[in-house]
């Protein structure tokens, strides 16, 4: 008796899941969008973006015109800097900065080499376009390094000592110098493609996990087909679960495409940890977001409302996920908001598995974070659904 009941339950679930998949398959434009997002879009993001200071256009305003000033200027080299010409008047520099044609102007005042020769402190100015504060900061750090090194060499020459390979004729006379060797873990070459590629994959997963189930549900409401489902012998769960299962299947397929079709073969993203764990994590995450999507659908009446709600939820999730903004730098309230966003846990765990090779023993807090949100979401969704339709 019990098993017959079970079988009916399962066969209904199967039929409904198949219905959802068919509905997706029959929208070729939508399928093209899904394929694009999980392949070309990820490729573009991974190949397209770099955080390093690259080719910052530097303009020289040299009023000294000495060997020393040329020597200093010559040290601003690629890849960080790129010479964008010399100017003869201060206002030209301002103009180039205003027009965005230069990122920095190096200004060497007259008497620079004389001061150096006398042993006085000579100064040079640099104006940096800080309208992008991060790039501005990186440019300033690089420039101060270059100038400091130059200054140190001048001093070393005058006193006739070499400083740890820094000056003189390579004569590494000992000096109490601290060499700080930086070792960047998990991504030693600071390959931006790894970060960007994974981050884009996670964003695309997020987008579809929220949008597709919400749309699938709202569509039933808008067309009135939800009434037919409700008078059928299906329970609310049997209406919701197939939508979630179908979308999870599609998104997992897309994830596999993005990972094995683009990220691993093209960009050599190191899958350091267990793939099984990653897909288990993704299933958990996608189901959670699908639950949120269905919740949105129960709260809205039509696709337009649902679309706006999705934007309202997804934009903060992506921007405040902790990938762009260091959580440490966020105000406390925002950080709390971040902790209720499943994407925060998903990002940490995904990078943990894919790049750091972390296992479940390290990542269990992330899994439980998502699971906790999943439980709360599904309870709310079922309650809302019952209230609305029962």
């Amino acid at each position, binding site marked *: 008796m019990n098993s017959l009941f079970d079988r009916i339950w399962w066969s209904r679930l199967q039929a409904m899941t198949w219905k959802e998949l068919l509905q997706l398959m029959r*929208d070729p*434009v*939508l399928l093209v*969008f899904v394929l694009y997002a999980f392949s070309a879009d990820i490729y573009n993001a991974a*190949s*397209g973006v*770099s955080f*390093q200071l690259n080719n910052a256009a530097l303009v020289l305003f040299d009023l000294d015109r000495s060997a020393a000033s040329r020597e200093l200027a010559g040290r601003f080299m690629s890849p960080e800097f790129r010479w964008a010409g010399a100017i003869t008047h201060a206002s030209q520099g301002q103009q180039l900065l205003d*027009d965005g044609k230069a*990122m920095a102007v190096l200004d060497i005042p007259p008497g620079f080499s004389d001061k150096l020769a006398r*042993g006085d402190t000579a100064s*040079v100015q640099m104006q*940096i376009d*800080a*309208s992008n*504060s*991060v*790039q501005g900061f990186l440019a300033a750090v690089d420039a*101060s*390094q270059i100038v*400091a090194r130059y*200054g*140190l060499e001048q*001093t070393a020459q*005058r006193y006739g000592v070499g400083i740890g390979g820094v000056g003189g004729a390579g004569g590494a006379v000992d*000096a*109490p110098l*601290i*060499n*700080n060797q*930086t070792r960047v*873990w998990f991504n030693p070459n*600071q390959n931006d493609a790894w*970060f960007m590629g994974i981050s884009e994959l996670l*964003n695309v997963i997020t987008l579809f996990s929220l*949008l597709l189930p919400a*749309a699938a549900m709202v*569509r039933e409401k*808008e067309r009135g087909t939800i009434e037919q489902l409700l008078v059928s012998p299906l329970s609310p769960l049997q209406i919701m679960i197939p939508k979630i299962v179908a979308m999870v299947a599609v998104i997992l397929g897309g994830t596999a495409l993005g990972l094995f079709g683009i990220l691993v073969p093209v960009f050599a993203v190191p899958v350091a940890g267990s793939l099984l764990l990653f897909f288990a994590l993704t299933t958990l995450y996608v189901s959670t977001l699908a639950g949120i999507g269905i919740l949105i659908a129960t709260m809205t009446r039509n*696709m*337009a*409302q649902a679309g*706006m709600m999705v*934007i309202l939820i*997804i*934009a*903060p999730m992506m*921007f*405040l996920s902790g*990938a762009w*903004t*260091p959580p440490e730098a966020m*105000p406390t*309230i*925002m950080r709390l*908001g*971040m902790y209720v966003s499943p994407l925060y846990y998903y990002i940490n765990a995904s990078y943990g598995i894919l*790049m750091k*090779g972390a296992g479940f023993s*390290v990542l269990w807090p992330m899994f439980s974070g998502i699971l906790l949100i999943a439980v709360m979401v599904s309870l709310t969704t079922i309650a809302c659904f019952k209230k609305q339709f029962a």
Partner: protein
Amino acid sequence: MNLRRISVVAYKEWREIVRDRLFFVLAFVVPSLLMLLFGYGLSLDVENIPLAIVDYDQSVSSRDYAHHFSDSRYFSFQGYAQREQDVEKLLVDNSLRAVIIIPPDFGTRLKSGQATTVQTWIDGTFPFRALTAKGYVTAINAAMNLDNLSAHFSALTGIGQETLRNSMQSVKLETRYLYNQEVKSIWSIAPKLIMVILMLSPPFLTALGVVREKESGAIYNVYSSTLSRGEYLIGKLLPYVGISIVNACALTAFALLLFGAPFKGDPLFFLLSTILYVICTTGIGLLVSVMVNTQVAAMVGTAIVTVVPAVLYSGMIIPIPSLSAIASVIAHALPGMYYAEIAMGSFLKGVGIAALWQDMLILALYAIALFTAGFLGFSKRPKN
């Protein structure tokens, strides 16, 4: 082109918006709420990086070196660790982002005037943070070296340490940050937020406008009416452009009053450009709506052409010059980049039409191109 017919379509669309209470409220609430969330939350300042120190030396000078990092506001000192093995796990589970390892002979080498090597480990998962952290480490280390070297040579030569210090910095770099003197990230973010949010919300307002009528069949009223394609599309767009202009004004007010971003440019020029930009972004939604046949596809398509590029290719977080060829093409193919130039110019740089007319012209051409594409893609005699 009949103005009266356009206004009739626009009025009908407007009535529909107003009658859909939740949608109407969301249309105004979503942009402002996003502005508040991003404005307060989206700090790109890298501070309080969790740091641990492994000090194998435990001497006065190693403590002193460690203090320079643990006292810095850029790092948040989590404590000393005994061995390297102890911290490796903490880097994996995100408890730490940086570790400094001081070798056992650190103090003795420095005292005897020899060079020594300290290691810094940085979690490179997020390259953007890793780069900044590396910059901080380098700067702090350089300052320490200056102190140590001047003290050392002063002892050797008998010249005063201060004099030596000065002469070691024989060249000083005076850095002036233009447009954003304090390198406040909110100043550089706020104007771009206007750009991003006007790329996120308005396309979704219009994305379903045409396709909804296709799905419900109401479009046949349009097919059989005397309305021309152009009249219909313009009428559809107008109410959403209106809503988005109101929203743009609200966003600008937030940027100025709440986030204190300075506005140095020409308000009229900025307003005109904003109107053009809003026509472009609402137009993107409308174009998608014309091209697809289901509302789901319209939403997904709009999300793909707006949400992802708004994050990546708008210059919001990653500067356009750092983009590769393909990404740069995508950036140039969307209106966000041009409007970002205008917003930055108007807010921080204080330049106007003389410097930015090209960007404005491109926005205008963009609007025309979108409209033409929509016009050509919309047929009053559909094949099926």
